[in-house]
């Protein structure tokens, strides 16, 4: 199935300005998407964004659907879903 990953903000400096499309198996989960991101971009990301040993984002970087963070990485994805990848910035 087709998954669209949309990095926004500062993350576009590392993932490119345009959304990315992936083909994943029918029963893919958010964890599978993270695995693909890690394999494709992890080593190229700065240390403050990506923990190479854990194979996971560091800090407040989230996969977001409909403005809600996917907290449970076993959450199944569906065909055509648009997943926003963002780094939460607060200021103050």
């Amino acid at each position: 199935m087709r998954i669209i990953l949309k990095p926004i903000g500062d993350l576009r400096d590392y993932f490119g300005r345009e959304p990315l499309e992936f083909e994943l198996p029918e029963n893919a989960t958010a964890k599978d998407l993270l695995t693909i991101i890690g394999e494709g971009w992890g080593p190229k990301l700065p240390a403050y964004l990506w923990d190479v040993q854990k194979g996971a984002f560091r800090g407040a970087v989230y996969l977001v659907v409909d403005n809600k963070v996917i907290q449970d990485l076993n959450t199944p994805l569906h065909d055509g879903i648009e997943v926003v990848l963002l780094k939460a910035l607060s200021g103050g």
Partner: protein
Amino acid sequence: MENELKGYAGKQIRIDLDRWEAHIEDVSAELSRKFLGGVGYGAKILYDELKPGIDPLGPENLMVLATGVLSLSEVPGGGSIELCFKSPLTGLWGECRVGGDFGPELKKAGFDYVIIKGKSPQPVMIEIRGQNVVFHKADHLLGKTVSEKSAAIREELGDKRFCVLCIGPAGEHLVKIASVMADDRAAGRCGVGAVWGSKNLVAVAVRGKEKVVAADPEDYKKFLKQTHDEIKLNPMFLGLQEFGTIGDIPSNDDGGDWPTKNWQSNSWGKGQELFDHFQTHNFIRGYGCYKGCTIACAREVHVENERRKTPKHGGAEYESISCFTAYILNEDMDAAVHATYLCNELGLDTISTGSAIAFAMECYEKGLLTKEDCQGLDLRWGNAEILPTILRMIAYREGIGNLLAEGVRNAARKIGRGADEFAIHGRGLEAPAHDPRSGKALAITYATSNRGMCHIHPLEGMAWDRGKLDWGLQKYGLPDPNKVDRWDEAGKGSAVSLLQDGLVLPDVLGTCKFYMYAGVTVDHWAGIIANLTGWDIDGAELLKIGERVINLQRLFNGREGLSAKDDMLPARMLEVPAFGKYSNTPECVFHEFNSVMQEYYQTRGWDPVTGMPTPEKRAELGLD
């Protein structure tokens, strides 16, 4: 508590410090509808009742403690109170917000506002217990730290549940960068602590038991729950909850949003290791600063290192830590946490104080200050050893501390010899730890913010063009942030106008702005207010009120001598960073600042030459 004005406590106290008298009066329903509360109501009071040109440290200055209509614990961000006054640091509109329970407790006591004038003949602590106001001698509290004062006051009043605002030794010594503290939360900026000190006002303590009654209690509760539920999985909500504001340090360092070495650069490269140290060695837990906060971005922290030991305390916010690390090239996080703890105990604004030390370090480097001028202190960059000593010197106005206690603008004027190049401020208010070279909307908001260059009002610009937040304002005309580059210039002036109208609202409504970061919009606020007050009010009217407040504060400043020439940035912010990741990135610097400012004035309906609201704009907003 029932009154004609639903959703408000409905009363205010006028305090005459000269006579130790308190008069209780009704709050005007008409003014409440027009200005809502918070810094809106404060602006109206100050504009109407303060003569232009008065000495901010004289008895004629007013101190308005202003809740907003939403300063209620059950409201998202409702733990809030605004302090409004003429600033001794800038000579202009002064305001600070502080989180915590003081605002909601004042409502429970039956009051929306406390308006304080005059000067007490001796140090005084004001007790507000329900509808009773008592003046207490406070000589015995002088010299105590903030936590000592707060504990002593609760002990004296016989109730630990009193909410206390107080100054530390810095306010007592009329230090122009002194804060007012609510335990470990700070009303930091604009020299508010010096105003309290000038009035011999040591503390205000409040305790109440009443409840504000909503016009439609059932729908009010339903709407609140709906709003709370909607934002629980918002990425900003979760990011703040998990990492606090200090969590921004690594990404801001990388993004060119971390002013470094007194603004010589916008990126240092030490952010990640400093944050890692903090998480491992200093951070204990997150907590909410007021009863009912669901975000809980505050950090309980400590330093266990014997040389810099602190008890567990609340602190280590992004701004405070940045001003004691990147600003002064200090790589010792323990020293930074310790320094911000001392600032809180002494009642010093961490942003202005860190800035003043950075300024002094640059003056020392360039030979404008010598070791002798600094009483033997070695003010080389990164020397954290001096921090405990210099902080006390500033708080007690000793030696070099007496100079720095005046703020960087005044200190630079006194030193002369080109020192003003190193004084990084907006209208006299020391610049916070966000760099307009990371996103140019911030340049416009910094240049036009009514209280000066601060870390609250300007940030909506940065969060829009760099952080890609739309604040729910696209339906009101805000350009889609995903179609805007952070380094674009044209269009930022008009966008900032709307951003300011929308994002002044938390300080008008008496709420924490982080809830707007987390997805609460003007439409949510309108729904809550409508059910609370019974008013027929919507997001568009709230934006109009925001615009009215911005314009009124601008008029206040105009009366004090502000004009378009003051809408500018320090030269250093308009230069390519001297070192770091962006030192070869000329596009990060603003090139057409003047023309974007004209775009801003035009959108605002302000005179392009004077920068002041035109008569037509004043009439439109009901400010004529």
